[in-house]
């Protein structure tokens, strides 16, 4: 099952991403790490797209004069000459992390595994980004940024082989001013999460945190005497009547989520929740909106 999963997921993600226009990540900062890319920085620089004409000033290389435009001006030489300038185009690195701890390998009745949904969303986002010319880098030790269509395949393979049980992104060096997208269930204790987010914010990095939950985890739909067993060696609990603790459980989950949102806001990250019984497009749109250029 695991062997054929990457290809399928990559294809699914590609099909999925083709429904949205290329996602442009707002490049707010100019960083030294930016490499030559496809998208304009709204300033003059090296690139292929036309930016503006300006009058010839002395010292401009003659081969930069746009002779056709100059001829149309009808003015004498030198004063009527125009130089053609192009827009500076550059690419940004987006760092992706997807939780692959055992608690993600779980699904309730009639839904998909959280892990599967998280992988799909991560790859769809990556596909969009790669089509937009961005560089995408998975967050795990020794990862390299990938570019282009072939990069998506490599990314899918990397995500699939990634098996850490921490439940939180590892402490690996990230490009400065990178955009970081974290997808997981984030059921770890809040202090652990806070520490991780603080480290990320210090990189510095900005980004988005998407919490993926199964509807059964929010509603606790069980009844009667039930023995609950954890997935990450966290013991088990016998609950005599599940329906009696349902409200308390919901409150506890709400509190956790509120804490999570507060931590993300403090670190300058966006925060969203996605339930696996919803269509993945909604989550991708939320990510799209969060990463799209802010004007």
């Amino acid at each position: 099952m695991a062997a054929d999963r990457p290809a399928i997921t990559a294809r699914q993600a590609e099909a999925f991403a083709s429904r949205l226009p290329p996602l442009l990540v707002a490049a707010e900062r100019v960083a030294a790490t930016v490499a030559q890319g496809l998208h304009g920085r709204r300033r003059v620089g090296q690139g292929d797209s036309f930016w503006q004409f300006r009058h010839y000033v002395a010292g401009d290389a003659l081969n930069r004069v746009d002779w056709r435009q100059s001829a149309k001006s009808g003015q004498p030489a030198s004063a009527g000459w125009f130089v053609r300038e192009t827009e500076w185009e550059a690419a940004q690195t987006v760092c992706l992390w997807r939780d692959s701890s055992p608690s993600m390998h779980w699904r309730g009745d009639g839904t998909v595994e959280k892990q599967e949904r998280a992988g799909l969303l991560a790859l769809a986002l990556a596909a969009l980004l790669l089509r937009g010319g961005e560089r995408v880098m998975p967050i795990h030790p020794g990862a390299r940024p990938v570019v282009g269509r072939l990069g998506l395949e490599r990314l899918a393979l990397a995500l699939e082989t990634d098996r850490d049980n921490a439940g939180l992104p590892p402490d690996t060096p990230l490009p400065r001013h990178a955009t970081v997208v974290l997808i997981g269930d984030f059921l770890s204790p809040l202090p652990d999460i806070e520490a991780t987010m603080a480290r990320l914010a210090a990189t510095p990095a900005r980004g988005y945190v998407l919490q993926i939950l199964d509807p059964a985890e929010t509603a606790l739909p069980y009844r009667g005497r039930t023995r609950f067993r954890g997935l990450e060696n966290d013991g088990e609990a016998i609950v005599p009547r599940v329906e009696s603790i349902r409200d308390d459980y919901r409150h506890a989950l709400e509190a956790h989520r509120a804490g999570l949102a507060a931590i993300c806001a403090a670190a300058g990250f966006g925060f969203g929740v996605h339930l696996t019984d919803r269509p993945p497009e909604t989550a991708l749109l939320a990510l799209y909106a969060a990463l799209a250029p802010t004007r």
Partner: protein
Amino acid sequence: MILVFPWALAALAGLPLLWWLLRVTPPTPRTETFPALRFLLNLRATEETPARTPWWLLALRLSAAALAILALAHPVLDAGSALPGDGPVLLTIDNGWASAPGWSRRLAAANDVLDRAERAGRKVALLATAVNRAGNSPAIVAPMPVPDLRARLAALRPEAWPESRPVATAALRGWSHPGTTTIYIGDGLAGDGFPAFAEALAATGAVTQICCDPTPIRVLRTPLAEADRLVVRLSQTPQPVATQVGVLAQSGDGRILSRATIGIAAGEAAGTAGIVLPTELRNILTKLVLDAPPSVGSMVLLDERWRRRPVGLLSGDPIAADAPFAGTLFYLNRALGPYGEVRTGDAKTLLERQLAVLILADRPLPDGAERTAIAEWVAKGGLLIRFAGPRMAAAEAPDKLLPVRLLGGDRQLGGALSWSKPTGLAPFAPNAPFAGLIVPSEIAIERQVLAEPDAGLPEHTWATLTDGTPLVTQAPLGAGRVVLFHTTANADWSNLPLSGLFVDMLRRLTAMSAGVTTGAEATVLAPVETLDGFGARTPPPLSAIGLAANAFAVTPVSAQHPPGLYGPESNRQALNLGSAPGELAPTPPIPGSRQEPLTDTPPEKSLAPALIVAAFVLLAIDTIVSLMLRGLWRARLSAAALALLLPILLAPPARALDIVANPALATRLGYIATGNEEIDGIARSGLSGLSDFVNRHTSATLVQPDAVEPGTTDLSFYPLLYWPIVVDAPKLDPAQIAALNDYMSRGGIVLIDTRGSGSGAGFAPGTENALRRITQGLNIPVLAPLTAEHVLSRSFYLLTDFPGRFVGEAVWAQRDQDRANDSVSPVIIGGNDWAAAWAVDAAGRNPYAVIPGGQRQRTMAYRFGLNLVMYALTGNYKGDQVHIPAILQRLGQ
């Protein structure tokens, strides 16, 4: 109901303990994996009510346990009471012929005894009181455990002969086990030596007599042959009320040719009834069977004695006896020849062989060896028929072998010198053997010999002239009879021999005679086929030995001589249980015994298996419920289980299909429903058989036939309608007439069958009138008999006649050709009962015998049906076949 192990009920006391245990043990929780367990761990302490097993589950488990305990106590329903005594049980069973009718009841009673003995742990000995088929005399099977004895009991069969009470008595006298309980299941027939037997039985121990069948013991005696009938006789044990029982006369292939009912008045031990059958049918009878449970006593095999009646002819003038139209034996030969074996020769030669009837035509019998021999033969049962004539009239000394004394000379009626006119015959008296024969008016007797007037003369007279003088007289002589015709056997004295009445009278007389068998008297005939106790034919048992041919009438049935057929094919004789006369004496109660009736007691039923099954069902339900409580019983699983179980639970019941869904979809035959269930059934199975035949032999495809009702059903889909006529058929109403006329005018064919009204056998009397009644208003065209030239005889097979169940009656079809409908006759009328010939029952057999019979007749009947279907489907397509001879002739030129 009793409990075999009542102490097992003590375990019920443990139920409260079980209840307590079950109650305190909570059901196993269902298990779920859950990622967000951390939040639950913090909430855990909020509520901890102890889970209890639901009360209904508790009740379910307790009832399962209670049922299992009840089953262990082994309750038995309808159990008999315990047997008295504590020693072995001696089970004595009568298995003679009289036990066959109620054998299943006897076996049930014996098994009941075995059940009771088995419960008490007692051994059982068995004594069957009849000699068995291997020829072993009755002996007591030593006491053995019940399971071993059951096999022996199951192997026990009623034998075809009576019990050997003396031998059984001797066996009982040798029994010496203290504390014996004796059960005697008797057949109710005392036989010989019953008192000694009863005494010996009573000496063995406490006797319980289980007796007897509620129905009387019946034996069908060998019948008596009379002139126009077979008198069947029945003996039975006297009953306090009048009883009636039917007797079926069957032919060799199992057909029932006639049925008679014997009524026996209250307190009487015997009754008779007559079976009237034409001689042809009487001669193919092979057995008489009581309409009662099968038993050898309710069956009589008929052998050659009831059929072959050789007639010897002896003339006073041997030289001119056969002269055409004048000889004394000429007319006799012509009259008897077609119906039996006629022998001629001198008296010595004739009497050397077996003879049923001896006819002396004008042959005086003076004192001498010949008369003595003939008189002896008559006394042994022969029938002597004598005809008068000139020689007898002229005889000097009065003849001693005559039924009446004759006046000398003869009387002439009419003639040149007489005023009187030749006289005719008076109608026959109803009790004479000639009763029922019609006397033609043209018969005239011109001369006769006269009987001496005598007070006893009328009772000797079987036929008289219109003036009252006797024409046929008779007198018994020993076991036989002497009959005298007071006129000649040729046309010299009367024209009686020229009439058909002469033939009928002779046949009646011949049929009255005792049958004979050929072969020398003392030949020992080996048993060929014998009857078992139920009257079924079996190979002869080991005990059977041969029997001299002349001993059949006097030999009682025994293991050496079981009832059945003996001797080679040419000389077969039957030994019947009813051959030997004797009273059927019922058994008296055994002194000092307990009496139990032999009734249909329901067999013991053990409830334990049912209880165990119920307990298991409850446990299965409990398992499912527990699984559901633990969440292991998934909807998909239960659906799969249901899918497996449902086909078993809801075994699809056979469902009748709507046969008349849409008659236009396939070709089919139809029959007009008469409302008489039997006739409709015959028509239906007949057309169904014909459809099968057509499907097998032609490319036409017919589906199952339909019943139609003119006026209601749309007839246009049926190419051919079969219409059996019943006697009480009502007149058609205008709507039906219109529907049928419309059907016939548009090319439909109606085959009207009066079902044998004209066959002479009288199977469906009165249908001719019914036919006249119902065809009023129908447009029946001018009809002509079908010939071999008609298209109907050429349309598939080449036919010359059109047989059904009967043969020979003319079949009528339209005389004139009607070009409008392809020259197809709209109606075909006949009385050959075709549907019965075509009929095929569920087992694929033909349930109705064709008459006179033979596979060829049935095949021809089917071929006629096929031709008819082809005629209906293709019209005059084969019409030119009729002209083939003419065409060939023309081509030849």
